[in-house]
């Protein structure tokens, strides 16, 4: 799904941000990318988002070769991605609802579809009652959840989260990772960049450590989701994978007298 082959990236000022990086991330994986400041994490993400182009090597995402992608195809490629930034990047003069709806509007979705999908996504991130609030009325954690809702509202295949916990406290950080876990459980690939090794240790996920533009370690054995998803036939499409995962999760969480689970909202699929 995502494949970097001998990728290097140097900037005009001579900085070598990535040095011969090779990695492969399968569909449905949850990967942490860690490393010190200036290690090359952001460059790696930018290349994934096609904001930058590798100087050497090839990058293939969703069977598309990013190196030679035409400029006019970039917006359509980006619709496969959901991006979450450290500084949330919410539009301050729009309500929570409009911030999330904005992502759908700018790719030309119909209002009818938007009015169904946005409330569902907001309820997924636990902000159903804040849809009319303005971003400055929300806490940091809530703002990041709005950003998360915006990233998943267009049914992205890959969520790229660039330090999403950088501006929130430890408790809220865990909440955000839990939410990313939940999104990942539906079959969406999640790539999360973070500084916090403590946070990473709490989850038994694959961790790629980057140092001086090189991959220092790649703990592929902990790619739990890959192991789990290998039990499913490889040619199964995304919707089917999601359905199986949701059913599986439902069975695992099922309590006869338990509270009602959130459902619906995927009517557009």
């Amino acid at each position: 799904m995502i494949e970097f082959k001998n990728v290097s990236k140097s900037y005009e000022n001579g900085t070598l941000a990535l040095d011969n990086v090779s990695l492969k991330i399968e569909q449905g994986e949850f990967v942490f990318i860690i490393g010190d400041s200036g290690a090359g994490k952001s460059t790696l993400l930018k290349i994934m988002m096609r904001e930058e182009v590798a100087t050497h090597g090839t990058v293939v995402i969703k069977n598309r070769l990013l190196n030679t992608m035409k400029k006019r195809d970039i917006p359509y490629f980006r619709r496969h991605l959901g991006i979450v930034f450290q500084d949330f990047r919410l539009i301050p003069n729009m309500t929570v609802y409009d911030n999330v709806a904005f992502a759908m509007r700018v790719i030309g979705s119909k209002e009818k579809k938007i009015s169904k999908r946005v409330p569902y996504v907001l309820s997924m991130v636990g902000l159903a009652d804040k849809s009319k609030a303005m971003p400055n009325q929300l806490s940091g954690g809530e703002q990041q959840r709005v950003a998360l809702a915006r990233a998943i509202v267009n049914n992205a295949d890959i969520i790229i989260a660039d330090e999403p916990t950088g501006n929130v406290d430890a408790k809220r950080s865990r909440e955000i990772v839990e939410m990313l876990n939940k999104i990942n459980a539906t079959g969406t690939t999640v790539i999360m960049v973070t500084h916090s090794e403590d946070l990473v240790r709490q989850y038994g996920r694959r961790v790629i450590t980057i140092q001086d533009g090189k991959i220092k370690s790649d703990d592929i054995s902990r790619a739990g989701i890959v192991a789990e998803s290998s039990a499913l036939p490889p040619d199964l499409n995304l919707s089917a994978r999601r359905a199986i995962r949701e059913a599986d999760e439902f069975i695992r969480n099922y309590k006869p007298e338990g509270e009602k689970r959130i459902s619906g909202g995927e009517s557009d699929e």
Partner: protein
Amino acid sequence: MSKNTEKSGSASLTYLTKEGFRNIRSNKLMSLASIAVLMSCLVLIGVASLLFVNINIMLGDISQQNVIMVYIQDDATDEQIEQMGAEIQGISNVATSTFIPKEEAFPEVMESIGTAAALFEGMESDLLPDAYEVTLKDMELYDETVSSLEQLDNIIQLRHNRDFAQQLTTLRTTAGYISIAVIAMLLVVSLFIISNTVRVTMYNRRLEIRIMKSVGATKWFIRWPFIVEGIVLGVIAGVVSLAIVFGIYEAGIKAVGNMLSILSSKPAPFADYALNMLVAFVATGVITGAIGSIVSMNKYLKEQDYDSDNVSE
């Protein structure tokens, strides 16, 4: 994959236009600032243009008063006088030629000299010769026209004020150059101020542009609301500027109206220029608004641009 990779053929123009209007409302302060900047520039240019139009008209009126008198010999027959009239009209630079018979010329002169007329009391009214009063179309061709008139038969002499005509022509040409230079300068300054305003607006909106890019909005989908916004602000600034220029012009005419009437010149009626000015103003507003938005947005829309704000490494 769901429908989110479809080319956005369903991209609704209504939404984009609405979004343009919403942008204006939600960025009230910046919208007001943009309108104010554009308006100041347009008002300055408008007032300067009208000022130069009036100076030109005034100088034109004064030159028109600088007539050439063609005095006719007393023994010329009526036919010869008539033929002379036709010949004068035949000269290409002649605007009007009026025959003034000697009977009319004397009382007119008497009237113009006022009390001194008493000195001429009892004199014959045919003291002065018949004459043609000639006005010219283009004062720059003064000399050529005078030589053509001098070629005519049956004339006693020509009375003309070459120096005055030349001075007026020079003055008019100079005023023309000055007006072009001043308006051009104002245009350059305006473009500079307007482009800076647009740049500041775009800088304030780079977050929105970045979000749109990151969720996969196409370039034109991002541009369109900004273009609508530029056009709407341009139209508003154009219309309001016209109203302000009208106010300033009317007030100005009231203030200097008397002076103009002494020079027997009338100010240009605003209505004659209102439509042209409105078209020019709105066009300037729309073009600067739309092109300004497109040009200054390109910086944020460029792909592969290294986004230094976004480096968290």
